[in-house]
């Protein structure tokens, strides 16, 4: 079973940085121009653009030209690998509660 193909590890490394997670949070509600995103950070504009590039490459945000500015929006479905590890635990408990049921019914027969 392949859990983390390369495209997914890109998503994981893309959100491994605090600033990029904050950028995703900022884009949760609305599409925003790069200037509005940069206003939330102390770092230089090129540094902000570099982080946005990483998010773009991972497919987590999309870029759109609007006049002379670039606007960014979140692509939430790209975060699905992030939710998958929760799904592992969901299956984990499904499986173990089944085992608990088997355990109890076996004890009953004894």
């Amino acid at each position, binding site marked *: 079973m392949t859990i983390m193909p390369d495209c997914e590890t890109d998503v*994981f490394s893309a959100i*491994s940085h605090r600033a990029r997670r904050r950028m995703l*949070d900022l884009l949760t509600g609305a599409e925003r121009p790069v200037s509005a995103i940069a206003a939330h950070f102390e770092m230089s504009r090129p540094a902000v653009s570099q982080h946005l590039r990483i998010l773009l490459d991972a497919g987590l945000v999309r870029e759109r030209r609007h006049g002379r500015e670039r606007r960014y929006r979140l692509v939430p479905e790209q975060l699905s690998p992030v939710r998958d590890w929760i799904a592992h*635990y*969901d299956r984990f408990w499904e499986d173990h509660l089944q085992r608990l049921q088997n355990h*109890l*019914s076996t004890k009953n027969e004894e």
Partner: protein
Amino acid sequence: MKHTIYKEISLPQPPEQVWRAISNRAALADWMYPNDFEPRVGHRFSFHVPPKPEVGFDGLIVNCEVLECDPPNQLVFSWSAGGPVDNTQVSFRLEPDGEGTRLFLAHSGFDLSHPFGDQAFKGAGYGWAMMLGQLAKAIAGEASAGN
């Protein structure tokens, strides 16, 4: 944004019997993993998930601490398996249901908005991601072994 897994099952056995199955070391070893559990608040224990070389799983240790122990109603323990699965909580709540028991399981504390602390990515490879992959393999291995 925190995420919680909820499960609910009906068991034909009374709460006292279900309680023994979730609060006894040997019983837990039977349906969970080898462990050094003791049913008292503050007790630290671990589950040793054995390796399964045939599915490429190296095994792992889950560190736990009993947080609540109210027989035969409620058992809560912490669950730390590395990376962002740190200090999550597993709770079993038992309710009488006719002759049997309604069992409510909640596994809470998964932080979905910021599950990937910079720390988790230090060191060789994506340690926790590999661990979770391994866990999934172990579950798949068990499922196929059971069928």
